[in-house]
């Protein structure tokens, strides 16, 4: 297990193996699903194509590192030749990518770096550093900021890169709520603050997938982030409890289930009309 600190050069793989420290996504899964979901997901490391493309995008946008990709000249992965080439690339430790996907990722990189504010934030730091700290309950926690600037003129900055079907900041509330970005921001802020004594500035850089690589830098309301902070606390308490007993229950029981209001209304109307 890692002692509290910021580890600049830990590989993604080693970071994800640290099951004795709770991550932000783990905390979100504990509450949004159940401890059982958390336990099962934790035991199998999942890799799918979307995850691979995300990894490539991050390397390209944040580090301008193209070395992880193997561009294979196929229209799609449906042919036998394409499948074999992809498997060979994976066996060699590379991520297979189609030319059209590769062009899209490169366009996203160029769009982010053409954005003055994004380029300013992405300077003076380092991508993918691993952060471990101890919570007051004794629990070890971790996070891995996409990009971390330790000593900017406004103090530490933690940047999270999101690729999305829409970078429209007016629609960011939905994805931020659905995917738990409020919890994520609170989690990362707490981690950096625990280690450095200063709460970092947290910034999202959202870049749009598809043919228009628009970029936006939406910010979350600080009171809502504080609310999510309290939610994180519940997740940590739950994790501590499950670990102490080594019991990972599924969904918690609820009071007797009520009808959805519109179903009730429909039935009531029908009964009245009899």
């Amino acid at each position, binding site marked *: 297990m890692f002692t509290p600190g910021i580890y600049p050069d830990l590989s993604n793989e080693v970071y994800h193996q640290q099951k004795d420290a709770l991550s932000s996504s783990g905390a979100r899964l504990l509450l949004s699903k159940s401890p059982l979901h958390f336990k099962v997901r934790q035991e199998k490391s999942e890799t799918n194509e979307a995850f691979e493309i995300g990894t490539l995008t991050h390397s390209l946008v944040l580090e301008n590192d193209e070395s992880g990709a193997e561009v294979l000249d196929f229209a799609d992965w449906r042919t036998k030749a394409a499948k074999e080439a992809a498997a060979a690339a994976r066996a060699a430790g590379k991520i297979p990518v189609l030319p059209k996907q590769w062009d899209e990722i490169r366009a996203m990189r160029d769009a982010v770096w053409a954005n*003055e*504010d*994004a380029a*300013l*934030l992405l300077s003076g730091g380092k991508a993918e550093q691993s952060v471990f700290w101890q919570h007051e309950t004794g629990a070890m926690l971790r996070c891995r900021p996409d990009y971390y600037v330790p000593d*900017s*003129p*406004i103090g530490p*900055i933690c940047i999270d890169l999101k690729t999305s079907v829409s970078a429209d900041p007016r629609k960011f509330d939905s994805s931020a709520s659905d995917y738990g970005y409020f919890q994520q921001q609170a989690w990362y802020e707490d981690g950096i603050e625990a280690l450095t*004594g*200063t*709460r970092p*500035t*947290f*910034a999202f850089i959202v870049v749009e997938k598809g043919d228009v690589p628009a970029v936006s*830098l939406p*910010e979350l309301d*600080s009171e809502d982030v504080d609310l999510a902070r309290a939610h994180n606390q519940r997740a940590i308490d739950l994790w501590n409890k499950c670990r102490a007993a080594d019991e990972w229950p599924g969904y918690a029981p609820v009071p007797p289930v009520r009808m959805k209001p519109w179903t009730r209304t429909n039935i009531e109307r029908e009964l009245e009309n009899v």
Partner: protein
Amino acid sequence: MSEIVPVAPIGNKIQYAETLAHSNLLPKHFQNNPANLLFAIEFAEALGMKPIHAITSVHVINGKPSASADLIGTMVRRAGHKLRVTGDDTYAEATLVRADDPDFEFKARWDMDKARKAGLNTATWKAYPGAMLRSRAITEVCRAGAPDALHGIQYSTEELQSLGERPEPASGSAAERLKAASQVIDAEPANEPVNTIPDEVKANTEKALAEGTIDGYFAWLAENDAPAHILNYVNERMPA
């Protein structure tokens, strides 16, 4: 209980300020600055306190008079109001009861969470949380409950300085704040007196002009990589 401070004629005050300005025991911003000193003396008079008291505890920041939180508390108490402060290193609570409205309590409470939200996680706050919380609670409750006793002093020196420490309010976006902060840093070297012309250059220019060797002096400066503003200075004085 207010002390009676005799009001001195202005001529005497100017002389007093000019004499006092030479003292190296004064706070730095008053040393050799009789005008500011005179302001402080006038201010002390308005507050009914001794000049030396105002000089050591009243600071003018960006044209706004400020005082220590303790002095603010003293002024409020001297006006006849009751002020009580409780707390420790984690919180401070100040309660003010006005002399003319004894049934109502003004309250202000500060804890570290509130300080953090206000962006006050500086070294001083970390080293002396109790004292800083206490100061904030006192000034807040005095502003709310007894502004009439403060004679224009709205904020404590520490409050105004903490505002000055942050060039942009935290409400700006991360990129905006970073840009603003970077500009402050970039601008700092410009504060150096880079544009002053050394007396030696001035004297040499005069001498060279009188002797008709100004062209040679200019060439010599240029050869020796003199800074642009010095070359400009000499060039402007060369006959056409």
